[in-house]
Each structure stands twice: as structure tokens, then as C-alpha cells.
């Protein structure tokens, strides 16, 4: 696939380019700040963008702001955001707009090459990728005890995998259960979290956002 990288550390940027080119992808731009990224995308949108949250000049959330802008301007381009820390608020903002082809990973995850590459594939295919660490942290929180306490351990695990962007088929594979069993669990989760049953919302994402939104 055609990729763009926005990462301010020259070292890591070069490493990412090498990795992706090695894997047979095409890197059409590798830049060090958000403005350069926006310009590069305007010149020719790639399939997926990998963008670091913290970038110059202020090193706060320029990368995320750029990602959100690109989501609205080029909805067909997948965006994978890399973050130094687990920042649930950032993840929530990303997912709030449109969950197709978007991902939020801890930066360290890049070191696990297979995971990183499969995350890219998922985002490219229009899926949602959520760092397991984000999800683990959110599930560890007891802010939503009222709803969360209702979940059984099994349902909790299913929700965790769901939040990481796994499809029902993938969840079934991981837990060695049938797909219909997974569907039973997911429906139970949706009901316990009191999520609406209609076609206008993606209940899988709402389930995850329920943890994020506070």
C-alpha cells in the first residue's frame, strides 16, 4: 500500500521507512511536522498515514489535530496515530468522528513489527485498531462500575478484543469458541451497557467509547 509517515524523530522516521519499504510498501512521504504532512496529503493522498501525536512546534498534540483534519478532508485515507502515552481522550476524539480506517497505538507497539504491520493492514481495510494497553487501562478503571460490574469475565474479554478492533471471527479464533457464541457475548455487552439497537450507530465503537467518555 502507499503510506505517509509524520514523525519528528529523524531516527525513528528513517527506521519506519526502512521497515515498510522492506515489507514491500511504498512510502510516498516521510515528514517531521504536521504542516508538511497536510501539504503532502494535499499533493496526493496515500492509502494510510502513520502520524505521531507530539510534533513540533509545541510538542503537544499537533499530530492528532492534523489527523482529525485529514479524517474530515480525506475520509478514504486510513489514519494510524502513534502516541507516547496512553491518552484515552485522544483515542476518544479520533473515534468520535468516524471509526472506519482509524487506529490508535502506543508508539512502543512499532517495535513489535508483526503487530504494527497487521494494524496497518486493518486500518487500510477500513477497520478500527485500538492499542491493547489503552483498553486494558480503561477496563481497569472503575469509573463505570455501574455498567461494567454487570459484565461477566467472558464478556469483559470479548469487549477487550472488540475494542482492539478484532472482528467477531478473530475473537472466535482467539478464544476458541464459535462465532455465534461471540455474537451472543457481544449482544449481551451491548444490552448491559444499554446501547441503542439501530443502524445509525456502530455499537461496537460505542461500547468502547463508553469507557472513554467518562
Amino acid at each position, binding site marked *: 500500500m502507499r503510506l505517509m509517515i509524520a514523525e519528528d524523530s529523524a531516527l525513528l522516521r528513517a527506521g519506519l521507512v526502512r521497515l515498510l519499504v522492506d515489507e514491500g510498501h511504498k512510502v510516498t512521504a516521510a515528514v517531521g511536522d504536521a504542516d508538511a504532512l497536510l501539504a503532502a496529503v494535499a499533493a496526493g493522498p496515500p492509502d494510510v498515514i502513520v502520524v505521531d501525536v*507530539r510534533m513540533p512546534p509545541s510538542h503537544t498534540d499537533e499530530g492528532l489535530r492534523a489527523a482529525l483534519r485529514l479524517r474530515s478532508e480525506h475520509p478514504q485515507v486510513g489514519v494510524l496515530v502513534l502516541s507516547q502515552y496512553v491518552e484515552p481522550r485522544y483515542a476518544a476524539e479520533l473515534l468520535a468522528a468516524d471509526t472506519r480506517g482509524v487506529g490508535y497505538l502506543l*508508539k512502543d507497539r512499532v*517495535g*513489535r513489527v*508483526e503487530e504494527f504491520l497487521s494494524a496497518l493492514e486493518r486500518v487500510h481495510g477500513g477497520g478500527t485498531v485500538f492499542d491493547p494497553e489503552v483498553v486494558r487501562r480503561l477496563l481497569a478503571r472503575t469509573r463505570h462500575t455501574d455498567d461494567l460490574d454487570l459484565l461477566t469475565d467472558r464478556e469483559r474479554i470479548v469487549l477487550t478484543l472488540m475494542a482492539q478492533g478484532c472482528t467477531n471471527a478473530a475473537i472466535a479464533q482467539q478464544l476458541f469458541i464459535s462465532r455465534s457464541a461471540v455474537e451472543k457475548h457481544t449482544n449481551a455487552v451491548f444490552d448491559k451497557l444499554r446501547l441503542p439497537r439501530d443502524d445509525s450507530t456502530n455499537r461496537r465503537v460505542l461500547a468502547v467509547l463508553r469507557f472513554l467518555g467518562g
Partner: protein
Amino acid sequence: MPVRLAELEQRRVAALLSGGAASPEGIEPRRAVSYLWCRIPVGLLGGGALFLLAAGGWTVASGLSHWLAGHDVDGMAPSWPVAGYLLTAGLLLLFLDLAGLAAVAELERWLICRFLSPDEMTRMRRRIDELAASRSGIVEAVDAERRRIERDLHDGLQQRLIVVAMLLGRARRKNSEELFRQAQTEAEQALEELRQVAWRVYPASLDQLGLREALAVDAERSPIPVHISGDLTQRPTPAIETAAYFAVREALTNSAKHAGATRIEVAMSQDTDVVRVSVRDDGRGGADPAGPGLAGLARRIAALDGRLTVDSPLGGPTQVVAELPCG
């Protein structure tokens, strides 16, 4: 008007009699008026003493000229006993008059001190303001320092370690000797980076070897030639030593980053109660004392009752001097 007069008086006393200097708050009108009233008798006293001096001088001069012209003075012919008697009396009077003048000067100084210098309360208040400002300054400086450490760790070390992990992942996939070797090199680089970050947080050798040695290490690492001269005669307290060290290092970093300098001079010296370190570069100048680095440094030094002066005209050279009390 009374205030103006009082100020003039204050300047006169400061210039002639090295009395109390003016205070930054200026003079309260009420106190200026009281001062001027008290000043009248003291002035008359001074005038009287000066008049007596002049009269004495006149008496001596006229008496001598009479005797030399061959006349008597008050019916006394010139003779050694008479001259001796008059000389003794005259010297005694002169001494008394001069003592009186000295006392008047002392009174003047006391009056200025009593009425026009800031009183104890004002001085205390000023000191409390200074302390409050420097205390919050120190807190800000510490926070800024923490932010810098966090950035330091992430921008360098973390990225490098991710690259190591990435290279190992690729090496495993491809089973490539070359990639393993690259990963090892990167890991060694990461270790070096870690050492440098730790040094930037706090140079361990500062405690063991002192200011000069710690600065020598930074001088070696500096991309621009650094020349260190002078030394401290005795080791100051750790707080002073650390502040002096970071002052120099901040200035070195600025010179290397912004000034485009080709040579940096570091000078250290110590008087009885002041440690002085200065950094001078031949760069383009225009350093801003209100910039985050220098301002943080100034706060830190102010908290130790020291002073940071930055002299950096456009076109250079730049000189940063930190003076810290070590009494």
C-alpha cells in the same frame, strides 16, 4: 515641595557625608516634613560651629598681625609665656569646634536614616516580596526542568529504543545477521544516550570533583571550543555550586545553539563572599534575558540571593555573569 527638598538634602548628605542612600519607594511627604523641621536646629548648630571656626581664625590672624606690626593685643606685649598660653587655649578651642562639627555631621546622617531611609517595616516588606517572588520562581524552574527531562527521555532515548526493537523484529522475520548487528549498534547508542540524559539531569561528578571538573566534561563535549580560566579558592555549598554549574551550562547551550559562536570563554572567581562565574562568547549577540532558559536561570539564582546579568548587544559579544553569595 518638602519631598523635593528632602531628596536634595538626602543627595547632599550622601555625597558630602556618605550618609544613607535613597530608597526605591521614595520619601513619604509626612516624614519629609518632620525631617525638614528637625533639620532646622541641626542646621543652626552646624552654622554656629562654622561661625565659631571662622571667628577663631579671624582672632588668630588679627592678633598675630598686631603683634608683628609692634602693637599690643589687649594690653599684652608679645612674649613666650603669653604666646604659649594663647596657643594652648586656641588649640583646645579648635579641637572642641571640630568635634562639634563632626557631631553635627553625625546628627545629619542620623536624621536622614531616621526619617528618609525605609524603616524596618518597609525593609521587611520588601524582603518578603523578594522571597515570595523567588520562591514561586523556584517552583516554576523545577517544573520547567522536569518537562525538559521528560522531553529529553522521549525525544532521544525512547525513539532509539523503539528503533532497536524494530530492528530486532525485522531481524527475526528475515533471520538476518546484518539486522541483528544494526540492532546491537543501536542498543549501544541508546546506552550512550542514556548516559548523556542522566548527565544533563545531574552531573554526578559535580558532587565528587567540584565545579571546574564538571564543567571540563561539558567543555570536552561542546561542539564549540570552550576555554575555562580561574578556579574557586574553596568549595561553596552544594546549592551554590549546582546553581553556578547550571548557569554556565545554560549559557554554553545558548551560545552553541543560537549565537553561532566560534569560541567561548568561561571564567570563575571567588571573593570573600561571592562566587562569580561568567560565560563570554564571540557570537552574534541578541540573547533575550526574558527567554525561557535564561529567565528560569535568573529565578533559580535569585532564590539563592544571587544575581544574573546578561549583556548581549546585537552583533555580540554576549556575556552572562552569575554572582552567588557564598558567605
